[in-house]
């Protein structure tokens, strides 16, 4: 595969983002929580897209893994009797383990079906989890849990968790970037494009789908603890298993930015996070209506998302691929997901 000068743009962009992320909490201390949530959104969008855009399996229940993470970490902090940071780390470890286990148990059951059945099966997962945890006294019932108090001033706490979430988001991004270049990533895309064909070619489709979901669960579980620590409480409906907010946003961000791509969910998270502020300020009360409308509009009218639109407008910013056989062909575009290519067939 040829790597033109444009190949260095994503790397430069990533470096820029990381640099900004490291510096921003000091330059804009009042926006640290905002920044922390931005990183969380990036993680949400990326993990949704693994199964969603890359494999073609909509999950409306990924928030369950995040919620498990919130609770597991808070519980370890409450009951394990360790010092703050040790219990945080142990809690996050347990969170990841539980989330992955949940995906490993549930996945083989519901990922053996085709996409639309899986999607609907996941619709209720968040609600079931919320109801179960809200009715369980050990985890605080409807009031939830208050995680351990950070041993330091609030500004420091916010900065700390902001960096933790940034690290998690970057880890997710780097892992997926690597993953999508492997055979595993190609198999996921094959499942998306034609699952019957993939099976007919001998690919173990269910195994790959479950593994993909477990991967998403891993990062979502890890993120739960830091968010709980940052927010200061774990509420089953409002935070942990917030299906109508987090659950919906995951889908929206990936679709908005360009599903099935690596940078798409990141762009979507950025655009969403910025506009969310505007929405909340100017559309107060109606912002969630607008979000639902946005999902419909994007899915129906702009399925390629921001990234896809950008590629169509400025193909030279991306890798160009020439149809070497055709004499007077226009530059065709190699692509990672469903996109219209411009090509004259010889």
């Amino acid at each position: 595969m040829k790597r033109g000068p444009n190949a260095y743009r994503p790397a430069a962009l990533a470096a820029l983002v990381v640099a900004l992320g490291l510096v921003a909490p000091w330059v804009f201390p009042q926006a640290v929580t905002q920044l922390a949530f931005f990183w969380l959104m990036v993680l949400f969008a990326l993990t949704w897209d693994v199964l969603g855009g890359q494999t073609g399996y909509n999950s409306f229940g990924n928030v369950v893994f995040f919620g498990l993470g919130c609770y597991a970490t808070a519980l370890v902090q409450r009951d394990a009797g360790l010092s703050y940071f040790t219990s945080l780390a142990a809690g996050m470890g347990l969170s990841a383990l539980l989330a992955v286990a949940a995906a490993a148990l549930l996945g083989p059951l519901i990922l053996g079906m085709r996409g639309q059945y899986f999607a609907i099966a996941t619709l209720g997962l968040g609600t079931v989890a919320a109801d179960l945890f809200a009715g369980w006294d050990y985890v605080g019932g409807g009031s939830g849990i208050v995680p351990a108090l950070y041993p330091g001033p609030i500004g420091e706490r916010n900065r700390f968790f902001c960096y933790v979430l940034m690290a998690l988001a970057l880890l997710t991004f780097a892992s997926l970037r690597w993953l999508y270049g492997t055979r595993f990533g190609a198999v996921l895309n094959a499942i998306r494009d034609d699952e019957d064909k993939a099976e007919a070619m001998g690919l173990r489709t269910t195994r790959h789908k479950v593994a993909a979901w477990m991967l998403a669960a891993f990062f979502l579980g890890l993120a739960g603890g830091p968010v709980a620590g940052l927010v200061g409480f774990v509420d089953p409906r409002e935070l942990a298993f917030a299906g109508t907010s987090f659950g919906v946003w995951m889908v929206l961000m990936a679709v908005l930015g360009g599903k099935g791509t690596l940078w798409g969910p990141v762009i979507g998270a950025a655009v969403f996070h910025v506009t969310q502020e505007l929405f909340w300020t100017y559309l107060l009360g109606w912002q969630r209506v607008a979000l639902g409308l946005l999902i419909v509009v994007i899915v129906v009218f702009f399925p390629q998302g921001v990234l896809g639109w950008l590629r169509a407008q400025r193909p030279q910013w991306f890798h160009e691929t020439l149809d070497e056989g055709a004499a007077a062909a226009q530059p065709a575009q190699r692509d990672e997901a469903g996109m219209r290519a411009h090509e004259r067939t010889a």
Partner: protein
Amino acid sequence: MSALLEVSAVTKSFGGVVANRAISISVPQGAIVGLIGPNGSGKTTLFSSIVGAHTIDAGAIHFDGRDITRLRVDAIARLGLIRTFQQTRVYRGMDCMRNMLVCAPCEREGLGAMLQRFPPALLERAESLLDFVGLHAKRQLRAGTLSFGQQKLLEIAMALMREPKLLLLDEPTAGINPTLINSLVERLRRANAELGVTLLVIEHNMRVMMSLAERVYCLAHGELLAAGAPQELRRDARVIEAYLGSH
């Protein structure tokens, strides 16, 4: 030497319709065997039965010495039995190279194998196979943008990438520009001779069947009508009647 593929008295019905009735065919290692018959005679159904796409009502199928009657599609494919589709199926969202790479056989099964990047040797092999079918120039293009004939060629290249022992081709020349059919047939013959791939081919084009197959089976109304060398079958009265009668 026992055959690579042994289909024994396979029967399959859909609802009340018997699509295949007690069909037995045998495909020797390294051979090119043809399957002909008028539309609706059950050829594609037989293919689907062989590759495990549906269960069969009676009979047995042996491949490479193993009983594959109860195996599922993906397991059978991993044993080296690959089929192409009549309506041509490729991974439309990915470029041709990626289509090829994802078809590379995976020797090891575990997580480590899944997470490999594609080694340069594999990339070379994919490129050379694309070249073999004449699609090298188009290798970076999205498969969905190729013409029907080009997608057919891609599908065949993908099947070859899988290093099959037996390749079931469902009407490989249907919809191909007549001027290109000869080169396609030539490529299939070369795949058989050079790469050692046994072929079982459904074809409507008699000229192709004559030049390609060593042995031909003819189906009609879900039953095996005749079997033999292509020249014999061409003169067989029953075969002629089956075709003429159905038009």
